[in-house]
């Protein structure tokens, strides 16, 4: 990470204010107006639109190995996803992923 302290605080403050304004938007400013259906339709997909795109390169080309595909991390990613799909339980998925990562790192050396 190569940001100055001022840049880091700028990010924290701007993200805090921006997030607050998103939360305040309708409650505070816009009031009892309906969101148009097409806007709602897009907003519903924001988490599944951002997070998978963020994970995919990290799982395939981890920084810790200088961008080389690492079998242990790839296995851990698949295990996390599989446990998450199977149990619908976020904590179980994290636990499964971390256990797989350590097991695979140990077994694959």
């Amino acid at each position: 990470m190569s940001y100055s302290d001022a840049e880091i605080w700028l990010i924290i403050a701007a993200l805090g204010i921006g997030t607050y304004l998103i939360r305040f938007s309708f409650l505070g400013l816009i009031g009892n107006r309906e969101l148009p259906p097409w806007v709602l339709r897009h907003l519903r997909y924001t988490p599944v639109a951002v997070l998978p795109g963020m994970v995919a390169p990290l799982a395939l080309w981890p920084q810790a190995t200088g961008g080389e595909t690492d079998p242990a991390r790839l296995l851990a990613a698949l295990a996390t996803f599989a446990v998450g799909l199977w149990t619908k339980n976020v904590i179980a998925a994290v636990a499964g992923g971390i256990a797989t990562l350590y097991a695979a790192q140990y077994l694959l050396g």
Partner: protein
Amino acid sequence: MSASFLRGLRDGLPFLLVIVPFALLFGVVGTEAGLNIAQVMGFSILVVAGASQFAALQLMIENASTVMVLVTALVVNLRMAMYSAALVPHLGDAPLWQRACIAYFNVDQTYALSQARFEDDPGLALPRKVAYFFGTAAPVCPAWYAITYVGAILGGAIPPEYGLDFAVPITFLALIAPALKTLAHVLAALTSVALALVFAGLPSGLGLILAALAAMAVGARVELWQERRAA
């Protein structure tokens, strides 16, 4: 303390099972990535939104530009505009200072609980709805701050060979899997993955934004098709 507040508090308690490990992880990963304790706490107290905090952190680890960090993390939080709109019919008549506080505490858990409760019992009086909402925030938000702090203290003590670089991807994957509720969600996620990989060569964050916008459009489009088919 009113009965509504206590009921909200009781309903919020089980969420600690999710909040505690995530807050711990954010504290640990944040300090490992190079933030100091005040900055880690700044995130948890001023932003109060786990997924976007992790997203910002990940892009900062990749040294993305400040603008890209902000845009990506804010896109992750856009769904909260939906929460804000959904609470207006129930809490929109509360005094401005109360709405200002509600907005600050309007996170995934408080929103989900309150929305469900208000729909179950639409006749609930406004002050009781407000009390219920703050009741749900009472265990969730302070735990988020306090456990982040514990994580930040621990983070300095954990050596880097524990593979914590991969904690953030694992966290995101764990959040994604249960969110794939419909075909539209699945296709949006696949679009996001495919385009993020295609655009991987673009400056950090830019490819992700383009992938996310396309994925949102795909999700919306598929939803529309399915509605028309069902109609």
